[in-house]
C-alpha cells in the first residue's frame, strides 16, 4: 500500500468516526422541543434564561421553536398532526383551550394546580397556566386626567376618550374584550357596542399594532393588560402610563402550557411543567413577559409591579362556552358595529 492510500484510509476512518460521534454526542443529552410564541424567546423575552435554568437541572437540551404569536401555535400543532416534534406547547390562549382539547392534542399535565395564585380556581387537568393578566384600558395620565371609572361610563359618555381595540376575529385580547362586554351587558351588549362604536379609532389585527398606535398618540386609551404600565415604569422609568380600574371587574387573560399526546419524552415534559411552576421560572415572568406569574414566587413581585391594579372582581367565560358561542357573538358584534 502506498503512502497516499494509507493517508486516504486514515482520513476516511477519521471522517467516519467523526460522523458517528456527532449524533452520539447530541444523544448524550435528551432533547426537549417546546413550541412557543416569538416574544417569549426574543431578545427581551424570558426564553433564554428559562432555557439556561432548566438545562442546568435536567441534563437535557431545551429547544425553543417559536411561532409569531399565540394564535398560530394551535394551528401549527394541528397542521403537524402525528408528525409533530413538539413535546410541549407554551403560550396557548385560554380562549383556544377548548379547541385544543377537543383536537386531542394534549395529555394530562399531572401537576398539583391547587397552589396557583390565579384570581380563579384552576381545575383543568390537561392545560396548565404559566402566567395571567387582567385585560385593562391603558392611558397616559398626562393627557387623560379623568379616565372612566367603569365600563358603563366608558360606553355611555359620548364625549369620552377615543379607543384603539383589537379585532376579535384575529386577536386574543380583542376576543377577550368581546367577552368582557358580554359578561357585563349580557343581551344588552349589542346596543352597548353600537353606542361605543363612534369612539373606536380602529380594530387592529393584533395587540402590537394597537399598542403601537396608542404610543403614537392615535387614541386616548388602548385595550391592553393591567400589567402594561409596569413595563413603562420598569424599563423606561415612565410613570404616566396607567391602567384604568373598572367597577364591574376585569376580564381575565390566562396563558397556558401543555404536553403533547405525541411526545416521546413524557417524563422530561412533566419535569418541565413542574419546573414551570417553580420559583426559578415564575420569577422570570413579571419583567420578562410583563404578565403576572401563575404561582407567585417567594420573592414576591418586582418593584415595577407595585402599582399594578388589582381588580376586585374577575370576569371569565368558560372555554367550552367560548368555543360554542364564539361564531354567534362575532356575528352579533359585526352587526352592532356596522349598523
Amino acid at each position, binding site marked *: 500500500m502506498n503512502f497516499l492510500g494509507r493517508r486516504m484510509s486514515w482520513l476516511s476512518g477519521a471522517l467516519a468516526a467523526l460522523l458517528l460521534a456527532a449524533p452520539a454526542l447530541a444523544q448524550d443529552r435528551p432533547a426537549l422541543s417546546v413550541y412557543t*410564541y*416569538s*416574544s417569549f424567546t*426574543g*431578545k*427581551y*423575552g424570558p426564553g433564554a434564561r428559562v432555557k439556561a435554568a432548566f438545562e442546568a437541572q435536567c441534563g437535557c437540551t431545551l*429547544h*425553543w*421553536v*417559536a*411561532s*409569531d*404569536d399565540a*394564535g*398560530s401555535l*394551535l*394551528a*401549527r400543532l*394541528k*397542521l*403537524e*398532526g402525528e*408528525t409533530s*416534534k413538539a413535546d410541549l406547547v407554551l403560550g396557548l390562549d385560554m380562549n*383556544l383551550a377548548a379547541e385544543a382539547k377537543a*383536537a386531542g392534542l394534549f395529555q394530562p399535565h399531572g401537576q398539583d394546580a391547587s397552589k396557583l395564585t390565579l384570581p380563579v380556581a384552576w381545575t383543568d387537568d390537561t392545560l396548565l397556566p404559566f402566567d395571567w393578566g387582567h385585560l385593562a384600558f391603558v392611558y397616559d395620565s398626562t393627557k387623560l386626567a379623568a379616565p372612566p371609572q367603569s365600563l358603563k361610563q366608558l360606553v355611555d359618555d359620548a364625549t369620552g376618550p*377615543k379607543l384603539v381595540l383589537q*379585532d376579535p*376575529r*384575529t386577536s386574543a385580547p380583542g*376576543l377577550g374584550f368581546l367577552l368582557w362586554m358580554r359578561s357585563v351587558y349580557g343581551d344588552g351588549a349589542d346596543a352597548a357596542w353600537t353606542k361605543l*362604536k363612534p369612539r*373606536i*379609532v*380602529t*380594530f*387592529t*389585527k*393584533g*395587540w*402590537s*399594532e394597537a*399598542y*403601537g*398606535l396608542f*404610543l*403614537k*398618540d*392615535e387614541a386616548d386609551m388602548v385595550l391592553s393588560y393591567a400589567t*402594561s404600565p409596569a*413595563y*413603562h415604569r420598569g*424599563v423606561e422609568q415612565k410613570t404616566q402610563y396607567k391602567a384604568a380600574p373598572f367597577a364591574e371587574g376585569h376580564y381575565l387573560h390566562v396563558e397556558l402550557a401543555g404536553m403533547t399526546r405525541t411526545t416521546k419524552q413524557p417524563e422530561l415534559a412533566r419535569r418541565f411543567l413542574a419546573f414551570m411552576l417553580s420559583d426559578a421560572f415564575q420569577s422570570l415572568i413579571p419583567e420578562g413577559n*410583563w404578565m403576572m406569574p401563575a404561582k407567585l414566587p417567594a420573592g414576591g413581585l418586582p418593584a415595577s409591579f407595585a402599582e399594578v391594579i388589582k381588580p376586585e372582581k374577575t370576569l371569565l367565560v368558560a372555554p367550552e362556552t367560548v368555543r360554542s358561542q364564539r361564531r354567534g357573538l362575532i*356575528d352579533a*358584534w*359585526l352587526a352592532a*358595529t*356596522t349598523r
Partner: protein
Amino acid sequence: MLQPATLTALAILALACGSLLGLARAGSDFATLSSLGPYLARLIVSAGLQAALSALLSLLLGIALALALLRRRFPGRELLLALLTTAAVAPTIVIAFGIVAIYGRSGLLGGLARGLGFEPPSIYGLHGIVIAHVVMNMPLVARALLHAFEREPGERLRLASALGFSAADCFRHLDWPLIRREAPALGVLVFLLCFTSFAIVLSLGGGPANATLEVAIFEAVRFEADFARAAALAGLQLTICLGLAALLTALTPRGRDEAGAERHAPRPDLGALRGLDGFVLALATILIAPPLLSVASGLGALPLLASTEFARAAATSAVIAVSAGLLACLLALLLASAARRSRRRSRLPELAAFALLGLPPFAFVAGLYVLLRGFGDPASLGLFLVPLVNALMALPYAYRLLAPALATSALRHGRLAESLGISGWNRLRLVEWPALRGAFGAAFAFATALSLGDFGVIALFGGGELTTLPYLLANRLGAYRIDEAGALALVLVVSAGGLAFLTQRWSARHA
C-alpha cells in the same frame, strides 16, 4: 410536447390547488360556507368596492405620473424612481404606520391642523385604506408603464417629430395605444392586491365595515385552526380572482407587430405640458414621500439594534430575499417565454401569475406544510419553502415587468431569430437579454425587496434559525419595543430603496 411556459404555469396552478386540497384534508370535517353566506357576501362587496376605488385612483394617477416622468428630466428624477419602487414593496405595516405618522391624529398634518386651530378629519375609514393603497400601487403602475414606454421604437418617435406632433398628438397616437394595451392587466393586478389586502385594511379601516376575505381566512387558519373552512374560503377567493383576471386579460389588446428596433430617440413633446406635469410630479411626491420618509424617526434607535441576533436576521433576510428574487425572475421568464412561439397568445401563463395574487399566503403556506410534513422537520422545510413561497408571491410583479419586454422582443426579433435558427438559451443570451436587461433589473429589485419585507410566510416557519428582519420587527413590536421596531422599519425601507436605486443604475448603464 409541452412548452416550458405551459409546464411552469401548470406546475404553479397545481401547487396552488394542491396546497388548498392538502389544507382541506387536514381539516376535521367537510366545510360548508353557507352558514357564513351573508357575512361573506358583505365582505366581498366591501372589499370589491374598496379595491375598485383603490385600483381606479392608482391607475389614473400612475398613468399621469408615468407620462410626466417620460416628458420631464429633472435633478432627483432617479431618486424619485427609486422612491417609487420602495413605496410599492415596503412592508404593509411600515406603510400603515407611515400613513398614521402623516395623517393621523398626532401626525404631521394633524398636528399642523390643530396648531391652526381646527380639528383634522380622521384618517381611519375607507379613505385611509384607499390612500395607503394608492401610495403603494400608483408607483407600481407608473414604474411598469414607464418600462413599457421606454421600449417604444425610436423610429416612431422620430417620425412623430418630423410630422411636428403636438403634445396632444403624441398622447393620441403614441401614448394612448400603449396605455390601452397595458392598463387593463395593471388594473387587475392592483385590484387583486387591494382585494386581498389585510393588515392595512384592519389598521386603517376604522371598523369591521371595512374588511376583506383575507381577514376571514386568517381567522380560520390562525384563530380557529379550522382548515377545512380556511381552504374553502381560500378557494372562493382564488375563484373570484381568477374569474376577474380571465375576464379582463381577455379585454387586453395584443401587441402590434413592430419592425423597428432603433431606440433612444427623444420624444417630440419633451418639455411640453410643463404645468400639468409639474403638478402631477408634485402631487405624487407629496403623497408618497412623507409616509416613507417618516421612518427616519427610527434613526435615533438604530444603536439599539447592534446585536448578533440582528446581524443574523439581516444575513438570513438577505439570503432569502436574493434567492427569492432570482427564483421569481427565473419563473417569470419561463412563463413569459410563451410569447416566443405562439402567434395566438396563450392566456395560461397570465392566469397562473394572477392566480398567485388570489392565493392567501396563510392558507397557501399552511397547505404546503401539510403536503410536505412527512418529508422533513419544519425548520429545514422552512429553509427551502420560505424563498420558494416568497418567489411565488413576487412572481406576479416580476411577470408584469418581464412579460411585455419579452413579448416586444419576440415581435421585433422573433422571425429573424427563427430564420437564423437561434433558439433556447442562445436566443435568450444573444437576442433577448440586451433588450430585457432593464426590465430584469427592475423585476429583480421588486421581487427581492418584496421578499425582504415579507412577514406572511415567515410567520409560520420563523423562529430559531429562521429569523428575518420583518420577523424581528414583529417580535420587538410585540415586546413593547416600539423604538427598536421603528429602527428596523428604517433598515427595511433603506435596504429596499438602496436596492431599487442600484438596480436602476445597473439597468440604465446596460440599456
